[in-house]
């Protein structure tokens, strides 16, 4: 019976690919080595005389110590280990060896069985894969592009170093997470929409994305693409994003510079025209004024009209002169002398300068000045001119005994947190829509008959534009008109 079982075993052992051997532990002898051993090792020890450690001679010198340790560390435990062997023809093969303990009916170990198979192909494939992965990781980590892969369910499966850097999250906290675990909901929603588009269409596409970073918002051009497995099924979503903020900024600056150049060229030609016109107009005006002066000295005492007529003529000359002056101011080169200024102080000074007009119409000024308003970097004289013009306009529009509200504000909405504003609300009537629409065009005025040249608001707009600020005018619901100037606070300019 036993003999027949041993026969079956040997028959089986000689036909399987794995090498098998048996060790008698008490005698420290090899009891059996299967024929497959020779196929794997290129030689075969001859039991029963060979000691089991004879096998170590084939183990690669690099692995020998590790393998010996493992064999002798705990001879009564099952174990699995991999090592290299050197065949007689010097070929190197990877072997996976399993050892297990065979016990007698009392449970006492008395033999060791071992099986071994050639795992060189698996090992090589694993090595190639590791090398490929390392190469890929090196490439994706050493680019300024933001690269990531997600599973179709939206979980991150790969992120590069740039991703970790710009979001400030270490890789281990990203992998396996979704956008909703990592970002605020609105950001995650936007990113998910792009994922969904990819899942729906399976088509690669490019998209511009805005990303809030520590140093401000950045614009990215992202290429989203599907990843397919060997069977052609979509199993991942890929993304490569390039930071194009610099390019965008350059484009914008170029556009702005071009606009400024065009505007400057326009203003220069208008300026030259205005200077020429001024010269040609001021001479006749000078003659008229001298003529009026002469005639005034020769008035007949009984003439009831000529005095009035001469006064009207003199006013007309003055008005024409004012137009020319404004035209020169509007079109002249404006070199700004910039310094950090307190807007409240500039407004107080302007109020002081128009106090005679205020008193004449008994108009009260209500001040709502923000005491903590940040300083602004402006040309003091130009901005004073802005406030004087706005106050004079407000005085003209406000009825006798009325009120003008002057307001400054430093703490604005988040979108305008770098800005400060000043507002002047008059107590007059609202402006008709056709006037509102053309307000900033030269020569539009509601007070032509009261000496207005229609240049004031164009000049203000011009001054505000040269300060990179804004100038708005609008009707108030409760009546009256609000003029508002908005500045970037000092230090925020060009940021």
């Amino acid at each position: 019976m036993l003999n027949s079982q041993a026969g079956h075993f040997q028959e089986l052992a000689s036909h399987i690919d794995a090498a098998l051997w048996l060790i008698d532990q008490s005698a420290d002898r090899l009891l059996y080595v299967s024929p497959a051993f020779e196929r794997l090792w290129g030689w075969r020890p001859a039991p029963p005389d060979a000691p089991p450690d004879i096998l170590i001679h084939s183990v690669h010198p690099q692995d020998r110590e590790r393998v010996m340790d493992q064999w002798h560390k705990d001879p009564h435990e099952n174990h699995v280990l991999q090592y290299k062997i050197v065949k007689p023809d010097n070929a190197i093969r990877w072997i996976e060896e399993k050892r297990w303990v065979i016990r007698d009916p009392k449970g006492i170990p008395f033999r060791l069985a071992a099986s071994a198979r050639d795992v060189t192909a698996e090992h090589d494939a694993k090595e190639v894969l590791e090398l490929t992965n390392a190469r890929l990781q090196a490439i994706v980590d050493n680019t300024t592009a933001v690269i990531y892969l997600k599973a179709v369910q939206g979980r991150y499966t790969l992120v590069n170093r740039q991703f970790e850097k710009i979001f400030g999250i270490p890789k281990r906290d990203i992998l396996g997470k979704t956008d909703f675990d990592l970002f605020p909901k609105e950001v995650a929603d936007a990113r998910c929409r792009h994922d969904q588009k990819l899942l729906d269409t399976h088509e690669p596409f490019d998209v511009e994305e805005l990303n809030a970073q520590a140093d401000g918002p950045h614009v990215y051009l992202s290429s989203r693409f599907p990843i397919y497995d060997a069977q052609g099924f979509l199993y991942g979503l890929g993304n490569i994003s390039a930071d194009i903020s610099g390019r965008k900024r350059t484009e914008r600056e170029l556009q702005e510079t071009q606009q400024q150049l065009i505007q400057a060229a326009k203003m220069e030609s208008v300026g030259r025209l205005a200077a020429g016109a001024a010269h040609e107009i001021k001479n006749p005006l000078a003659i008229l004024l001298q003529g009026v002066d002469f005639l005034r000295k020769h008035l007949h005492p009984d003439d009831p009209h000529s005095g009035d007529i001469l006064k009207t003529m003199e006013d007309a000359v003055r008005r024409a002169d004012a137009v020319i002056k404004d035209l020169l101011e509007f079109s002249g080169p404006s070199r700004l002398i910039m310094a950090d200024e307190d807007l409240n102080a500039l407004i107080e000074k302007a109020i002081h300068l128009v106090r005679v007009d205020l008193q004449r119409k008994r108009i009260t000024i209500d001040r709502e000045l923000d005491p903590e308003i940040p300083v602004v970097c402006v040309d003091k004289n130009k901005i004073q001119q802005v406030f004087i013009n706005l106050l004079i306009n407000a005085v003209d529009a406000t009825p006798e005994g009325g009120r003008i509200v002057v307001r400054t504000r430093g703490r604005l909405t988040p979108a305008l947190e770098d800005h400060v504003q000043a507002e002047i609300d008059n107590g007059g009537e609202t402006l008709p829509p056709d006037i509102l629409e053309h307000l900033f065009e030269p020569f539009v005025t509601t007070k032509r008959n009261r000496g207005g040249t229609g240049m004031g608001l164009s000049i203000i707009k011009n001054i505000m534009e040269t300060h990179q600020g804004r100038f708005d005018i609008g009707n108030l619901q409760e009546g009256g008109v609000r003029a508002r100037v908005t500045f970037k606070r000092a230090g925020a300019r060009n940021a």
Partner: protein
Amino acid sequence: MEMKKILLVDDEEGLTRLMKLNLEQTGKFTVRTENRGTHALAAAKAFRPDLVILDVIMPDMEGSDVMRQFKQDPSLMHVPVIFLTATVMKGEGNLASSGAGGYTFVPKPVTAAELIAEIEQKLA
């Protein structure tokens, strides 16, 4: 009081005529007018003015060049000059007059009273 002699040089004939009338009717000034910049030097040498009023921009010769000629003539170099200008604005005129050289710029249009005030200040 001795009448002061004023040479008025401006290419605008209408202006010089009226200014002459306005200045002379005060009884304080004798005015000679000249409408060509190139003739100003000869006119000044002949007239020996106490003060010259010079237009800045004239077609044949600029006011500044006329003044340069005066400065090279020992008999004229100390004669005070008031510039009449059709391009300088009020604020800038004051600015220019306060600068080095002490030249006074009077912007056109100017009233007779304003001009007389400038002249009297200059002659004081």
